[in-house]
């Protein structure tokens, strides 16, 4: 085992990542199955409740029809999981004081933080994708046994769910959550929520000072304000509507801000770790 493997295994064990991925994947599959069943019930009339006349469930048709739903959901659940990890990865070490032990080892703070980011951006998505793919496959294989249709079509687009480009766009969010994890005194999640509320209320306050009073809801949904609407527009346009060269060029300054923020946040994370002596 080399250094990198040692550091990654430490993260996996400390955050119980394997078990947590498995549990949350099972929840996700349960969610998909529930969705499937509810959708099927909706389509079955009372006459069709006779087993012989029940339309056989066709896994391939279903997968093709709901491919986007299945893997968009997978992507969202993965984001949730990554957020949980980023919120706890630095805080847990501080809470149980083990950071003193880890920092007494010959590993620089930069490498320690970089390893955590590697877990967030690469290992969790890959682990999540593998476990979810396997569980979804297994679940629908069971459906196939029931309906005696054994051919299963695996849509190619499954693998496009965890695009590195999306990860880059979302990196400021993960780094911000890690900063909360590095600095929170009692609850990183509460600190993250409070930080977000401070941004929203600051926008509102500035608007009021400038004589443009509005409601907090308007600021929250991005209809008023200075920074927050830009952030919402940036993410809505690129993540929701998809990419194009023109759009990317429109957001060149936002990308510059994103890169600068990531660098500052990374250095702050390293600095915060140095202060945990």
């Amino acid at each position, binding site marked *: 085992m080399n250094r990198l493997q040692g550091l990654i295994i430490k993260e996996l064990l400390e955050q119980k990542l394997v078990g947590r991925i498995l549990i949350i994947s099972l929840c996700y599959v349960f969610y998909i199955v529930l969705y499937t069943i509810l959708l099927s019930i909706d389509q079955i009339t009372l006459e069709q409740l006779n087993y012989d006349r029940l339309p056989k469930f066709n896994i391939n048709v279903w997968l093709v029809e709901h491919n986007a739903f299945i893997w968009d959901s997978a992507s969202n659940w993965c984001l949730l999981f990554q957020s949980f990890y980023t919120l706890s990865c630095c805080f847990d070490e501080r809470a149980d004081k083990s*950071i003193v032990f880890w920092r007494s*080892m010959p590993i*620089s703070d930069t490498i320690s933080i970089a390893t955590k980011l590697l877990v967030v951006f690469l290992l969790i998505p890959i682990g999540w994708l593998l476990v979810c793919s396997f569980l979804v496959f297994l679940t629908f294989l069971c459906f196939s046994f029931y309906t005696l249709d054994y051919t299963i079509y695996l849509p190619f687009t499954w693998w496009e769910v965890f695009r590195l480009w999306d990860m880059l766009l979302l990196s400021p969010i993960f780094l911000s959550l890690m900063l909360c994890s590095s600095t929170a005194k009692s609850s990183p999640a509460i600190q993250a929520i409070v930080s977000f509320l401070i941004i929203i209320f600051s926008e509102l306050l500035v608007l009021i000072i400038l004589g443009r009073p509005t409601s907090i809801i308007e600021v929250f949904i991005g209809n008023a304000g200075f920074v927050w609407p830009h952030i919402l527009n940036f993410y809505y346009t690129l993540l929701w509507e998809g990419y194009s060269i023109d759009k990317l060029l429109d957001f060149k300054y936002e990308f510059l801000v994103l890169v600068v923020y990531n660098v500052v946040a990374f250095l702050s994370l390293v600095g915060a770790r140095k202060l945990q002596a």
Partner: protein
Amino acid sequence: MSTDPLLRLSGVSKYYGKHCALENITFDVHAGQVVGLMGHNGAGKSTCLKASLGLIQAGGSIELLGLEPLKNRSKLLESVAYISDISVLPDWATTNQLMAYMNAIHPSFDEDRLIRMLKLSNVPLNNRIKTFSKGMVTQLYLALILSIDCRLLVLDEPTLGLDVLMKSRFYQYLTNHYDLNTGGIIISSHQVEELEDFLTHVVILQDGHIILKADIDTLFKRFKQVKIQQDTYSDVKKQCPSAIIVQYHPKGRCSIILDSDDESTYAAFGQLSQPKLRDIFIYLIKQNGQTDTGALI
């Protein structure tokens, strides 16, 4: 053996805002030495050790194995082992997991040595640390650290929270397994009595300042203790202004400590004896910081 010190602090100072945590700290640690860094709570012991290891920034000059620790922390920690409170071991890990981790990331870690040491202990390999007794955690932490081929062992209040038996076992384990011929030890504690038989040198801090640094033999030669009646203390004090009460005994008796090599000067006060390190420590703290009101510290 090289005469270069393992650790050299010259004029080290550290301020937290206006509060002075360390002021002009200067001392060396050489191979073969066991240096006790002693002081009351808040004297600056931990700050001094953390600055020595590059864990915090401080003014002045610090050289650890010839390098500046702040810039070379991770490289230096390959040759310097550090134990703070034993409760910092991750309680979710098992002994085997920690062994695998150390093996992967520490270039100076000797796995065979650890296995040999663990065989002599009752530390389980596959159980989580959270299921261990404090004694087992102590043994495991020491075994892990002593399995590193280190040139300097830095111990910061390592026995905090341990009972007397565990403290004794800790120092016994350390003595049996650490090779002082090639390395040195610096240990901080405010529990002076437990260090007495273990140290070769002493540095005593008070409010961030060094009030004494000496080798242990010189220290014991310099100070003498004598038991007197409390009502004669004022007479003794007149003849010997350095005398300070360090202990009270039944029947109106007390122990005073005198700071002098010249035993004949004070022989008249009573039977001179060798003071304990603890009493010398109390004497120095009282002499430098507190007036002798007769109250125990």
